[in-house]
């Protein structure tokens, strides 16, 4: 009689990237997929909220300038959803550093990453919030 061996499925860390700019989406996906993350995208705030609720990602990266609802308001809404309150949310923005940091702090974001992203340091910045395949 065969005895079932317990096995562990390596869970891939999923990052939801809410960003309307296609070039930025592609860049982030290319850099982070190579590091072992699974990336999902949403093109605007409303679809980002839906994707966060249905997918419960491990990390949410949010562009502050979105075409329907801006990133701050998306964060405000996501933080009121019980399942998502522990999910780190990080702003990606081209704003001046001082203003970006203040906004991130005021809105209770876990951090902010300034655009243009540096492809070398970006995975290190992301790893501060989640580890790939944890």
């Amino acid at each position: 009689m065969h005895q079932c061996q317990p096995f562990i499925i390596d869970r891939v860390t999923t990052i939801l990237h809410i960003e309307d700019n296609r070039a930025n989406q592609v860049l982030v996906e290319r850099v982070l997929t190579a590091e072992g993350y699974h990336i999902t995208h949403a093109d605007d705030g409303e679809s980002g909220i839906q994707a966060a609720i249905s997918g419960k990602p491990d990390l949410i990266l949010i562009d502050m300038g979105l075409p329907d609802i801006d990133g701050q308001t998306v964060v405000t809404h996501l933080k009121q959803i019980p399942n998502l309150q522990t999910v780190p949310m990080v702003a990606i923005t081209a704003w001046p550093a001082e203003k970006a940091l203040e906004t991130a702090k005021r809105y209770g974001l876990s951090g902010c990453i300034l655009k243009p992203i540096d492809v070398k340091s970006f995975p290190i910045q992301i790893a501060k919030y989640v580890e790939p395949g944890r």
Partner: protein
Amino acid sequence: MSKVSQYRSQNTLSQVDNVRPHRFFQQLWQPNRHLEMRRADKFSLQQLVEAYNQTRVDYIVPMPMNVARLNEYIKLYDIDLTASWVALKEETIHGLGMLGIRKDRAWITRVGVLPSGRRKGTGRAIIERLLQSAEERHLTTIWLEVIKGNEPAYQLFLTSGFQPTRELVVARRPPDLREFSGNGYFNGENIVRMVDVSRSTAFNLLDKRHARPNWLIESESFYNVPDLQAIFVECEDGAQGWAICQPDKFQLKHIVVEALQGDPASVSCRLLKALHERYFTRDAIMENLPEQDPTWQGFKNAGYFDVFRRIEMVKNGHQN
């Protein structure tokens, strides 16, 4: 005064003038001759949105739009697409600008040049065509705002005859859900009476404001807001005031407060706290309050923080 003499009277640029006057004036004053200007109503909103978003990709505050947002913007701020213009070169959009019209006044907005069209006179050509549109309609005063720190745009408007009038604040307030435990501000701020105000009364209050509002928060903008909310409050110490805003699914927008009795900073703070208790899950955006307005301190005391500033500018048609 001709444009050249107007330019020469500005000391700050005289050194550049002395170096290469011919070439410099050519760049500064002659619009790009290869540009075609086409009325914005000849384009779909989707085309306008795509072009507008491209103009903003590298802006300090990008603020992209989608079709629904542009449509709302057009309605709220009385944008006339037949008086708005798109700059094209070989059928490729290089820039655009829009004109809002209210009575004898115009408002220039959404001006932007795609990166490929910059430093080629595109922005100036758009502004000149918008000014021509205003002139054709006998609009005597033309307003606009430019984000503080956008020096190329500010210089373009200055050299097009606009003068700065005042600095405007754009501020936000994220909701702080921990603040609201049931008793909240309503009791804490000694408010003895709070009543909802009808739409028609709200318009009367808006029309009687103590200071000239900016275009975004003029009474005409509120006439176009379908779901306006207004409250009047009276406090134990006799202070009185009102607040008007537009609540949507996620945000409180178009927030205006006015003190009728009492210290404006204190009254506006109490009004805002009452408003935020009612809409306690909403993110709040306050736009274009003059920085000298006494209620600004009340906004700050109620948890608003300064996000960026705009410079309001005006050009009086009769000065030409």
